[in-house]
Structures are given as C-alpha cells and as structure tokens.
C-alpha cells in the first residue's frame, strides 16, 4: 500500500482535529487519535524539510545516455 501523500496526511490531520473538537469522542479513543495525529504531524513536517534543494540539468552523454548535472543559473546566463 503506498504511503500517504502529503495531501492525504494533511486531510487526515484536519479530520482528526475536527473529530477532537466535536467533543463527542470517548477519552480512550481520543487518546488513540491524538497519537495518530502527532505521528502525522511529524511525518508532514519531515516531508516539508526532507526534499533537498536541488536543481539539475539533464544532459546527454556521448554514449547517448542521459545524466543530470548540477545547474547553476549564473553560469548559464546569456548576456
């Protein structure tokens, strides 16, 4: 099963908050849901931070294959 996307996690979090705010949940269940919420929160935070800032340029090698090289705006600017 694919792990939850950021969007799905965020949606589930909002559902959890709404359920908790509803005040109808028995204590035990709300503790369980709280735990799930905290887990999702940390997953989402990680997701925001994990992507490395990375800009690459796709180039074709001499043998015809493809490779990615770091891309620097300054170098590539046309005067």
């Amino acid at each position, binding site marked *: 099963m694919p792990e939850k*996307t*950021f*969007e799905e996690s*965020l949606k589930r*979090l*909002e559902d*959890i*908050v709404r359920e*908790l*705010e509803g*005040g109808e*949940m028995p*204590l035990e269940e*709300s*503790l369980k849901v*709280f735990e799930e*919420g*905290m887990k999702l*929160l940390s997953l*989402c*935070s990680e*997701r*925001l*931070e*994990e*992507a*490395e*800032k*990375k*800009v*690459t*340029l*796709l*180039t074709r090698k001499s043998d015809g294959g*493809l490779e*990615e090289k770091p*891309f620097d*705006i300054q170098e*590539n*600017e*046309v005067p």
Partner: protein
Amino acid sequence: MDDDEKMFEGEGPRVYSVSGLTAEIRSVLESRFRFVWVEGEISNVRTPVSGHCYMALKDESAQIRAVMFRPRARILKFRPEDGMKVIAQGRVGVYEPRGEYQLVLDYLEPLGVGALALAFEQLKKKLAERGLFRQEIKRALPFLPGRIAVITSPTGAAVRDFLSVIHRRFANMNIVIVPVRVQGEGASAEIVRAIETVNAGLGVDVIVLTRGGGSLEDLWPFNEEAVALAIRASKIPIVSAVGHEIDITISDLAADLRAPTPSAAAELLVSEKESFSRRLEDLRGRVIANIRRSLLDGSRGLAHLRARLRDPRKSIENGWQRLDDLTGRIQRAETAVIRNKAERLSSAGNLLKRASPAARIPSLHKKLDYTRDRMILAVNAVLSSRLHSVSLIRGKLGGLNPHAVLKRGYCISRGIPDGRILKSAAETETGKSIRVTLWKGEVVCRVEEVDSTGNRS
C-alpha cells in the same frame, strides 16, 4: 522583315506545328513571367495523394490555374481553402501536353491575416473539435510536488524567473531542467522528445513547459500539432507558460494548466512552504488543545466521582439524615394528607349521616342487645329447668340405688345355686336354701314356709 511581309515576298506564311507553336508560347511566357506576384482568390483547391496542391486563382473577370508542388506545399503552415484571398509568388509555366498555362507557385500567403495566424486558427479549431482542449481530461496538479521538470531553454530568462520564485516560496524544492531549443526548425521535435523522456522515468510529478516572449514565429514550435499531442499523451501533468501574458499558444490550450508567465507558473505550482508550515502548526495546536481539554474534562469528572466516593460513612450518614428528613416530610405530608382526607371524610360523613338511615343504628343496636339478653335469659331458664329436672331425676335415681334401698332395710334374695333373684315365693320351696344380701353382708337361709297368697302384713 516580319512574317506578314514575308508572305507578300512570296515565301508563304510560316506554318507551325502544334508542338512548335506551343513551345514558342512556352518560351515567351516562361521568360516573360519568370518571377511574378499575383493577388487573387483561391478556388477549386485540391491536394491529391501526391502532395502537390492544385488550385485556381481568380478575380471578378479572370482566373488562372496554379500548382504548388509537394516540396513547397509541404512546408505551408496553413491549409489553402476555397475563397481564401491570397498573395502568391511564382512563375508562369506551360504544360505542353494539355496546352495549358499555369502558375507554378513558390510561395503562398493569406492576404491580411498572415499565414501563421491563420494556421494557428485552423489548428486550434481542428484540435478543439477533436476534444483535445476539454476541461474534463485535464489532470490535477500535485498538492505538494516532490520533483519538478522544467522543459525550456537553459539560457533564457524564463527558467531564471521560474527558479527564483520557486526557491523563494519553498527553498528545498527538487528541480530538473530539460534543455530544448524553443524556436526554429526542429524545436517542436525536441520538445516532444523532452516530454517523452520525462515520462519515461525521471521521478517527476509535474512538468513545466515554458519560454519567454517573442513573435508568433518565435513561439511557433509551441503551436505545432505534435507538441499538443505529446502534451495530452503525457501521464505527468503539464503546466504551459509560453510567451507573455497576452500570448496564447496551442500548448497553453492543450496543457493541464496555463500560466501567463513562468513566475506565475511557479506561484501556481507551489504554495509557500510557509503556509504549509503554518497550517501544520495550527493543526498541532488544535490537536493538543483538544486533547488537553478532553483530559481536563475527564479528570474533572473523575474528581467529582472521587469526591463523592471519598467518605462512604459520610455518605451513609447523609443517607440516614436524608432518610429521616424524607420520612419526616412524608409523615408530615401523610398527616396533612390524612388530615385533609379525614376532614373530607368527616364532612362527607356528616353529609352522609344527615341523609342516611344511620340514625336507626343505635336503636337497632339496643334492640339487638335486648334480644340478646332475652335469648340469654331464655336459654338460662331452659338450662335451669333442665338442671332441675336432672337433679330431680338424680334424686329419684338416688332413691332407686339398690344400695340405698338396702340401707332402708330391704334385702335381695337369690336362689342357690342358680343365683336368680327371687321375686316371688313361688320361685322357691320349703327346705331350699337362699342367699340373702343385706345392706351389710349376706346370710344363707333355709325356707321354712312358703306363702304365695301375697298377703302382706
């Protein structure tokens, strides 16, 4: 000397053969009209399989056949249609086998609109009819892209603008640039290949197709049918941001999202990381606040229960007190109720009394008592008379007791040996013995004399 003069010279007119005449016509026309510009209206245009485009150019009073051979016809950007007003450039040619002259066209351009603009309109109409631009087939963009591919010129301003906006909003976004030519011959093929390459597996979840502003000609590769088809064939959603705000290209129409500029594309694609972070923080705050509140409510509830449970004796005492209190209240209430009821009863009773035969009851009672007394007396009387009788009888009986009789001097005589009580002298005879029972003791006697007359002295 001209031909007419030659005739009169006696040589006779020159007689051409058909081919000869035609050849001369051809040479005259082809040299005279080696390079002409013609303005006219297209009619009867047809392009058979050969790829050569045949038509007639006409105006109000004349028409001329024209042909554009395949090599030239192929690169026409627009499709010649009947009724189109055009300007053409070519040469006059003579087709000898049919004796026809025609224009052999090198160039054709719609009058007024421009070939490219016309071509754009034609393709737009054609692809729209095929449903390529329908809203329903457009794919959704990812909520938070993991990796973005940008198909563009690596040296243009577009990529610079795009990158700077992206990094401002979300510093650690992962981007791969796929370099292509963005104008001129072969650019559209490169764009198509780039789209295919990204789809083949670069781990990208959205593609941005972009280039800076330019003329219609410059932007032309983005108006090619092949590019539109490649965009729709892509499994990865594509954002098109080509030219300036006012430019709209076929790729813009075919893409899943059009952005007016590369910067706008970046903004549409990536919400600020700030806002994601803020949203998460807000949610975190709310989750914690809510769980805290639930716990607080829970613990308050618990405290209440605990307080009530804490002293069972107190509880019991309270209970007793309460019981007494309630009992008192009940009693008071009962009394009140009873009193109330009694009052009601007595007033009812009074009413009843007044109306009822109850007044007769005491007299009935008296009668009852009187009757009872009489009955007792009567019974007593009967009883005492019986008693009296009984004592009389007892008295009699007493007198009849043989022992009492014996005491008075009488005796009982019995024969011997039979023991039979003698009641008559005749029952015995002289000389027999008889036993005589006296009050005290017995004597045995011998009979001396028997007198059965019964005379008693």
